[in-house]
């Protein structure tokens, strides 16, 4: 093992310096404010969870979990997402009255990185979960809230693509007969390998019409019209049901008036194995990775409760990248003082703080390079010696 330099951090760990912190804080509070206005209540859960319970319930790959041992020898993990811990709390405490519960969070999650930069191992997620509410209205509410909070965060251009976990599966079962035979196709779809998918479809002993249907699945993305196309190729009831659900969801979204940001995409398949209904991803044009995702899931079953929920999580690092780190206005005032007028300076600062004006108190003898220091402030006041300076 090589000796570590003082400045090194474990792979994927990042510092947040004051400027970025400020921007992040602003974005977070704008989003949180929106969530609170919609009646979502913020909660916190522990950073460490048991591997056997929350670790296993989360959909993050095992090799991406940070694992430790506690004193009793139980394996604990740094939480890799917030959905599983919230499902745990909800199932054990909050769902006893069998009512809809609306929760929100902003928290850091941890996913170990093996490869390269550009991927933090610790990053903040801000999101909501609407639990024990199974209507399409609830799905629509979560999507509308996602859109509303992204707008509030200052993101001008983005798109939410909605798919349904059931559709591709039902199409495969309808054509191939069993779930098992669909494994290969599902894998190609998941790996985004359309070349392999097409080759596999052509190699199957199927009628040309069925082959065509399987290939058409890859083209099912766009506006409202894709629902008609999807309905043309699906024949079984569960698959049809998925489309009807999406149609209804589209109406809900239109009633919210946010359809301009929404498209459909039946090719979205998630590595989140717990999804059970609609699922969606949010994209901003200038960031190469989705800035957020979500969907309907029935994770509470793993904690002994039958209830489903819909939620979303936005990745703060991706969102900040999409916002291009928007420069915050520097409006901090600096009051330089010397001993003689110290009291006056303190009073001035106090009155500024009272009015919400940021003001720094700086003993003039404590700064060596006054020019450089002064540049960091919007305005300065000197209360030095016997008389007042500008």
């Amino acid at each position: 093992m090589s000796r570590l330099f003082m400045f090194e951090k474990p792979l994927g760990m990042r510092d947040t310096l004051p400027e970025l912190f400020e921007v992040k804080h602003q974005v977070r509070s704008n989003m949180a404010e929106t969530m609170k206005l919609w009646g979502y209540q913020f909660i916190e859960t522990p950073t460490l969870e048991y591997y056997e319970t929350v670790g296993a319930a989360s959909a993050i790959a095992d090799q991406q979990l940070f694992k430790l041992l506690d004193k009793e020898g139980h394996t604990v993990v740094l939480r890799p997402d917030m959905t599983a811990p919230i499902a745990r709390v909800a199932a054990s405490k909050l769902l006893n009255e069998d009512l809809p519960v609306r929760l929100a969070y902003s928290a850091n999650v941890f996913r170990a990185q093996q490869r390269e930069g550009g991927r933090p191992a610790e990053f903040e997620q801000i999101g909501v979960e609407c639990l024990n509410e199974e209507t399409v209205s609830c799905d629509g509410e979560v999507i509308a809230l996602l859109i509303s909070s992204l707008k509030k965060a200052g993101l001008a251009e983005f798109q939410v693509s909605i798919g349904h976990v059931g559709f591709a599966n039902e199409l495969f079962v309808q054509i191939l007969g069993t779930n098992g035979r669909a494994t290969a196709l599902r894998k190609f779809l998941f790996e985004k390998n359309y070349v392999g998918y097409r080759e596999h479809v052509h190699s199957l002993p199927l009628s040309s019409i069925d082959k065509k249907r399987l290939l058409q699945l890859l083209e099912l993305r766009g506006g409202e019209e894709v629902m008609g196309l999807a309905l043309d190729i699906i024949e079984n009831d569960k698959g049809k049901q998925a489309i009807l659900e999406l149609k209804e969801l589209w109406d809900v979204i239109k009633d919210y008036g946010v359809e301009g940001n929404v498209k459909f995409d039946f090719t979205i398949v998630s590595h989140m194995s717990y999804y059970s209904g609609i699922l969606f991803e949010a994209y901003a044009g200038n960031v190469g990775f989705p800035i957020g995702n979500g969907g309907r899931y029935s994770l509470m079953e793993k904690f002994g409760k039958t209830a489903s929920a819909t939620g979303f999580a936005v990745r703060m690092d991706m969102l900040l990248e999409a916002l291009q780190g928007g420069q915050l206005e520097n409006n901090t005032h600096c009051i330089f003082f010397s001993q003689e007028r110290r009291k006056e300076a303190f009073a001035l600062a106090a009155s500024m703080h009272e009015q919400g004006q940021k003001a720094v108190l700086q003993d003039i003898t404590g700064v060596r390079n006054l020019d450089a220091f002064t540049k960091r402030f919007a305005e300065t006041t000197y209360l030095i010696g016997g008389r007042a300076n500008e």
Partner: protein
Amino acid sequence: MSNLLTIAMPKGRIFIEAVELLRKAGYQLPPEFDDSRKLIIDVPEEGLRFILAKPMDVATYVEHGVADVGIAGKDVLLEEERDVYELLDLKISYCYLAVAGLPDTKMNDVAPRVATKYPHVAEAYFREQGEQVEIIKLNGSIELAPIIGLSDRIVDIVSTGRTLKENGLVEYERIKDVTSRFVVNPVSYRIKDQQIDDMVKRLSEVV
């Protein structure tokens, strides 16, 4: 956000074939395109920006979204396992990945060693054969390794087999056929869907 569709192209041999294919698909690319040393070439008339990358890096640019689409060899996709859409088999730059070595030799029983530019592919391949091998990563002239005794086998791409032959090596197993693929960043695939669909359509008509 720039409205140009950024396309990552592999430099070298594949580049020429890829440009030819794009021209066949009706893209008007300027003639100086072929021997330019620039790394970024804009073709605003077609709404395209080309970035010229090492073939091995194309999928990396696309995964990170600095290029919307790219042309990458299947060998690169297998080795790098990047999160990109593999939309089309362009059927150009045909070659294959193979295991080769000196004729009539066996792998060392205790520590079979394999030299390759594709450590990931090589390891996965031998694991599937039920063999654990030691991988030695090289960056080129892989054929040297068995000749001078660095490894028992090599895993490399073969196009005509001439290089192997001239160096007295023989092919033992064929791992996988390789052609160039049209790859797309998952976000661009959704945000620039019309531009990309159009390109896929035009390309698929000429492959």
